[in-house]
């Protein structure tokens, strides 16, 4: 890994699939970029656009959302909702100038440890190329 400043990529990982997949990557000692801050959620449906926006607003350089593959959601349809929310949210973040690579949705199953590492490495590299987001919610007043 090249020496670069560590980014902060918040990852919302569903506990049934994606978080387990991340665990598997760890247990398998797969090397992957250290920029990700994993957060375990019960289901990818827990992803609320407001959480994502808050993350960006408060310093995240990227947000990764990961859930079970369509058809495999432990709660049956949670990931379908997550997908729809993600689509609408993407339109908003794009319109606000947040680059495409900074917000990503992936389906990662419990057995896909390698896939998790691949996604994390890919995303970290792309976001690193863009640089830190340093979102400024308000321009501080000079006078």
């Amino acid at each position, binding site marked *: 890994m090249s020496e670069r400043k560590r980014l902060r990529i918040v990852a919302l990982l569903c506990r049934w699939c994606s978080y387990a997949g991340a665990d598997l990557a760890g247990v398998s000692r797969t090397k992957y970029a250290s920029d990700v801050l994993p957060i375990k959620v019960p289901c990818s449906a827990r992803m609320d656009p*407001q959480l994502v926006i808050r993350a960006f607003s408060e310093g995240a350089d990227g947000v990764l959302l990961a859930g079970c593959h369509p*058809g495999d959601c432990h709660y049956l349809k949670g990931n379908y909702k997550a997908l*729809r929310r993600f689509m609408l949210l993407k339109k908003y973040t794009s319109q606000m*100038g947040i680059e495409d690579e900074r917000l990503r949705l992936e389906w990662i199953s419990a057995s896909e440890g390698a896939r998790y590492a691949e996604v994390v490495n890919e995303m970290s590299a792309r976001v690193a190329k863009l640089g830190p987001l340093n979102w400024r919610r308000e*321009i501080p007043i000079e006078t």
Partner: protein
Amino acid sequence: MKPESAKPKIAIALGATCSGCDYSLLDLGPSLLDVTDAVEIVYWPTGIDSKLEDLEAVEDGSIDLVLFDGAVVNEDNLEMARLCRKKAKSLVAFGSCGAYGGIPGLINTGSPKKILLEVYQGLPSRSDKSEPLKFEGEGALPKMLGQAYALDQVVDVDVYLPGCPPPLKLVSSLFGDVLSGKPIAKGTYYASSRSVCYECKRVKENKDIATLHRYHEIQPDPKRCLLEQGIICMGPATRGGCEAVCCNQNQPCRGCLGPLPNAEDSGSEMMSALASIVSLSNESKDSDYSAIFDDINDTIGSFYTFTMAKSLLGRRKVE
């Protein structure tokens, strides 16, 4: 009638405003005189000949109620906001502009300074000899700030009276409290703490939207919930207090009374709710939901018309 010195002092100051909030006070009709009889208006440039020096001359903290009407967009607005805070016992963010940035907040999709440069100074004109605007020295124009701000983003605010304009019932409620001497807790919002849906008389049956429509594309059923008919209505994520006047007029709520208590960002609340209920009966492994969102090209306009400045992201990315 109380002697002048015992009457509560009121001021109505203007930021980046359309003046609709203070002008709509005239629509209180004869009952407006009950208010004006009972108060002493210290400053109100629209209605009386009070000049800036009059406001500067009053004792700090001596004006019982200062209504600040407008957003903060240039240096004059900023100075006025600070002056109001200094002179007020209780400072009210009057209207959606003061409370959330309002329509002027939409300038946060770009940058006021950049727009100004493009508009007045940068472009050669075909047929005239325009001179650049003067921002320094005597007689200078007030500079634009980097973005539009809601009032509490620049000074401490005591009370909020949102709405575009604030519904007259809510305005009367505030004046009633002030005149009766009732203490108003800091942070009070003169708006309902429940959503517009509670006040809307439309029938709510079943939230499952197959297709979204822009409100000019269809003539909706006047009795049924607009959201259920596929029109983006901000009602579920917006404070009530307006008696759902927009829905009564067959138009969707556009969120002017702002987010509900404990919700910081009504736009993202609504995006979450909307995305959850579209295509509800068509959720499957192979569903492609992109078509249903095709018609939404302007999430800012659809979800943040009045609340851009106070939204979590606040402004488009700063270059």
